[in-house]
């Protein structure tokens, strides 16, 4: 199973004030908050970690059939930054997931899978949306994410 999540940074800045008191506590573990605070670009880190959690949640909730709002139970670990990409692992209910996030100027996009092998086989299509609106469901993507001006499909 694979998942993906895109965060349009402009839309996120408009919709969310993560500096609001208590905000980070509700969605990030103390260790994740430390990572955010010590980052050169805290805003970027907030949305990288968020898209990692969301991409994994999409797999985990399908797998377990359980919907819940428990972002702190999806723990981001082993972050490795390399040339505009961040690879990481998430652990929840002792299940491991693997992620890779791309940092672009206007968005963050994360793909997630249950193994590194599966992760490496993912194909990504990102469209400017909705100016490029079309019947994307016919393409049978494995996972869809749209946010703000962008639509991301993974196969």
């Amino acid at each position: 199973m694979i998942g993906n999540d895109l965060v349009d940074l402009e839309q996120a800045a408009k919709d969310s004030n993560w500096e609001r008191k208590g905000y980070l506590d509700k969605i990030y573990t103390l260790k994740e908050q430390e990572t955010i605070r010590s980052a050169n670009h805290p805003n970027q880190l907030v949305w990288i970690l968020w898209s990692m959690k969301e991409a994994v949640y999409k797999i985990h909730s399908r797998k377990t059939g359980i919907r819940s709002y428990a972002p702190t139970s999806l723990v981001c670990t082993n972050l490795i930054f390399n040339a505009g990409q961040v690879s990481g692992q998430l652990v929840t209910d002792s299940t491991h997931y693997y992620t890779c996030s791309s940092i672009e100027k206007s968005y963050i996009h994360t793909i997630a899978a249950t193994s590194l092998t599966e992760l490496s086989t993912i194909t990504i299509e990102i469209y400017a949306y909705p100016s490029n609106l079309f019947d994307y469901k016919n393409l049978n993507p494995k996972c869809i994410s749209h946010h703000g001006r962008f639509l991301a499909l993974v196969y």
Partner: protein
Amino acid sequence: MNKEELIARLKPIVSNYSQNKAALDSINADTDFIKDLKINSANLVDVILDVEEEFDILIDNESMEKMLTVGASMEVIENKIAQK
């Protein structure tokens, strides 16, 4: 506080973040924050923080997990008020 009062106090909070204003008119216990009201998952945190302020309660992570519908949220709020 009865259920109607509780919904009446919740409604303005969720209205701030809902992208489906039409669904707000028929808001009831079964209304789903994400599926029906189209609240962005990153804004659910704001809903929780606003609820804490509005009802002067603290919502722990275990309770927050369940807060995906109006009904589940009402239950959490009632429990937390009762514990005060």
